[in-house]
C-alpha cells in the first residue's frame, strides 16, 4: 500500500549557515528560490499546442504543482512567455509587442515544432521560428509535445530562474542580445 501523503511537499532551503536562531544565505539564492517557485506564465496559444497546454494546466498534469497555478493574461505581470503554436508572419509583430510589454526579468519558452522552427509550415506566410523576432530560453520539441515534455521545459526554466545572477540583465552580454533583436534594455 502506498504511503498517504498528509503534508504537501515544500521546497527545501538553499545552501547556507544554520545555527539555533538564525539561517544565513545569500540574497540571490533566496530571491531565486522565491522566483523559480512562483512563475506566472503568459500563454500565447495559437493552435494545437495550446490544447496540450490546457491538459498541462488541468488536474491530471497540474502545472500548479510547480508554482505556476496563476496564469497571467496581462503581459505586464507575467514572468514567462509561453509561445505555443504556429506564428504566422502577420502575428509576429504581436508576439514581439507582448514580449516587449513584459517587465524584466522575463523568460520565454517556445513550445512545439512550429514556434521553434516553423515546423511543417515551410511557407511564405509563416514565421520560421519565434527566435527570429524574440530571444528564447527553452525550446520544447514535439508536434505537439506531450504535457510531460512541457513540464520538463518548465523545470529547465525554473532552473534558469533559480540560478540567474542578480546582475545578468545589466550585463553587456544581455544588452548585446537585446540589441541583436533591436530592442532596448529596460533595466537601467
Amino acid at each position, binding site marked *: 500500500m502506498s504511503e498517504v501523503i498528509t503534508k504537501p511537499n515544500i521546497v527545501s532551503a538553499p545552501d547556507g549557515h544554520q545555527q539555533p536562531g538564525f539561517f544565513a544565505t545569500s540574497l540571490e539564492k533566496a530571491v531565486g528560490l522565491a522566483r523559480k517557485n512562483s512563475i506566472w506564465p503568459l500563454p500565447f496559444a495559437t493552435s494545437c499546442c495550446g490544447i496540450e497546454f490546457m491538459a498541462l494546466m488541468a488536474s491530471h498534469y497540474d502545472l500548479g504543482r510547480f508554482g505556476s497555478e496563476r496564469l497571467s493574461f496581462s503581459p505586464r505581470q507575467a514572468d514567462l512567455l509561453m509561445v505555443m503554436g504556429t506564428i504566422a*508572419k*502577420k502575428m509576429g509583430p504581436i508576439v514581439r509587442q507582448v514580449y516587449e510589454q513584459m517587465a524584466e526579468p522575463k523568460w520565454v519558452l517556445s513550445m512545439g515544432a512550429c514556434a521553434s*522552427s*516553423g515546423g511543417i509550415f*515551410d*511557407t*511564405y*506566410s*509563416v514565421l*520560421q*521560428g519565434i527566435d*527570429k523576432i524574440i530571444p528564447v530560453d527553452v525550446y520544447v520539441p514535439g508536434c505537439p509535445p506531450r504535457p510531460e515534455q512541457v513540464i520538463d521545459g518548465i523545470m529547465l526554466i525554473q532552473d534558469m530562474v533559480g540560478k540567474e545572477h542578480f546582475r545578468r540583465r545589466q550585463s553587456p552580454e544581455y544588452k548585446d542580445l537585446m540589441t541583436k533583436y533591436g530592442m532596448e534594455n529596460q533595466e537601467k
Partner: protein
Amino acid sequence: MTENILLNTVDEKLKAKFGDAIISSEQSYDFPVFVIKREKIFDVVKFLKEDSELAFEFLTTLCGLHYPDNKGQELGVMYQLHNLPKNWRIRLKIFFPINDPEVPTLTSLFSSANWQERQEYDFYGIIFKGHPDLKRILNMDEMNYHPMRKEYALEDGTRTDKDDSMFGR
C-alpha cells in the same frame, strides 16, 4: 442525365441572351462549366441571379486561377453559383492577360463577394474594378507580391533547419 439537362437549359438561356459572350460550355464531371468573356461576367451573373427560372441566388465561392503557360490568358477567376431550392450548381470561368488583371466586381450582387475578391486580390493580384475596399485580407499589409502566382516559391527563404539536398529544394 439531370446534369446535362441543367447544362443545356443554362446554355440555351445564356446563348439567347448574350450570344458570343459565352465562349464555351461543357460538362465537367458533375458540374456544368461556362467560360465567359471577362467584360460580360457581371451581366451574366446578374442575369443568372435574377432570372426567375434559373435563380442562382447564392455565390458559393470564387477563386483566382493562374496558368503561366496560357499566353495572353494567364490569369482567371472561377465562380460557383448555387440555386438552393432546386440544388442546381454551375461554374463560370473568365480568363485574361496577366498584365491587364482587371475584372468587374460582383459586390453589388453578392455581399459575400467582398472578402472573397479581396482574397483573390491578395493572392493573385487581380484588380476587381468597383470593389469598395480592395486591400489585402489574409497576408500582412507589408507583403509586396502576390504569393499564389506560380513564379513565387511556396517555401520560406529564411528556413534554417532544413538541409536543401534532403528536401529537394
